[in-house]
């Protein structure tokens, strides 16, 4: 029997299609009668879409322009 706690643990596996059939059906059945979990699942979906649009990046101190120029110089000496 799927409970809210199981939905919270398996939400990503469900959304990514990695849940075995029996568990998938159990989760779907739970969603039919639990509005809280339907909302939770929807919010996880929105979180994924939001991050995909926002595209936060690793913080770093590298001067990428200088690195690009260094690599270009290396490539010229190699060829």
């Amino acid at each position, binding site marked *: 029997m799927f409970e809210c706690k199981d939905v919270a643990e398996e939400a990503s596996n469900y959304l990514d299609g990695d849940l075995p059939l029996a568990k998938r059906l159990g989760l779907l059945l739970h969603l039919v009668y639990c509005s809280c979990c339907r909302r939770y699942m929807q919010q996880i979906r929105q979180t994924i879409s939001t991050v995909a649009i926002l595209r936060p990046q690793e*913080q770093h101190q590298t001067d990428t322009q200088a690195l690009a120029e260094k690599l270009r110089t290396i490539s010229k000496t190699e*060829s």
Partner: protein
Amino acid sequence: MDEKALIAKLIEGDAAAFEYVVGRYHSLMLSVARAIIGEAFADEVVQDAWVSAIKALPRFEGRASLKTWLLQITSNGAKTRLRRESRQLSLDDGWQAEPDYKFNQRGHRIDDVLPWNIDTPEALLENEQLRQVIERSYQNLPPHQRAVLTMADMEGLEMTEICNILDLSASNARVLLHRARTALHHSIEQYQES
């Protein structure tokens, strides 16, 4: 510009092409290196990976995408360095998607999941404070979670590629991805409730 043309430009030594690839992939490579070797050596590993990649570029056969190829070179360099340093990074265990106190003994939620006032990705991102909350939450993720989330949800890499690059089992990678998404969800939820 397609990838073949980009690679040809790089081999020709086109400055704009170099700026583009470094700008596009440096953070991503750093994310992979930090996940494997940790903060201290990641920068050096990525610099070395760039040099190896540029030297090997004329032999790049295009069997994988340029992105996957760069990440694989970064991963190999980081793993070699990890062996040399005899370090082992742990995968922050003992985690739950939601803390126990949110559920009763039968696993039912005790409190409602409240609806969000701002509830589309576009609307979420129009809110500058919320953008910062999400950015901060992303930066605070442990490196493994950040790397898996970045590759899966932003770069669209297949799970098998991610497992290969980070040397993780599929189940570990899936758990890390869910942890990362849950942490970000939690930060948005807290913001909306405040």
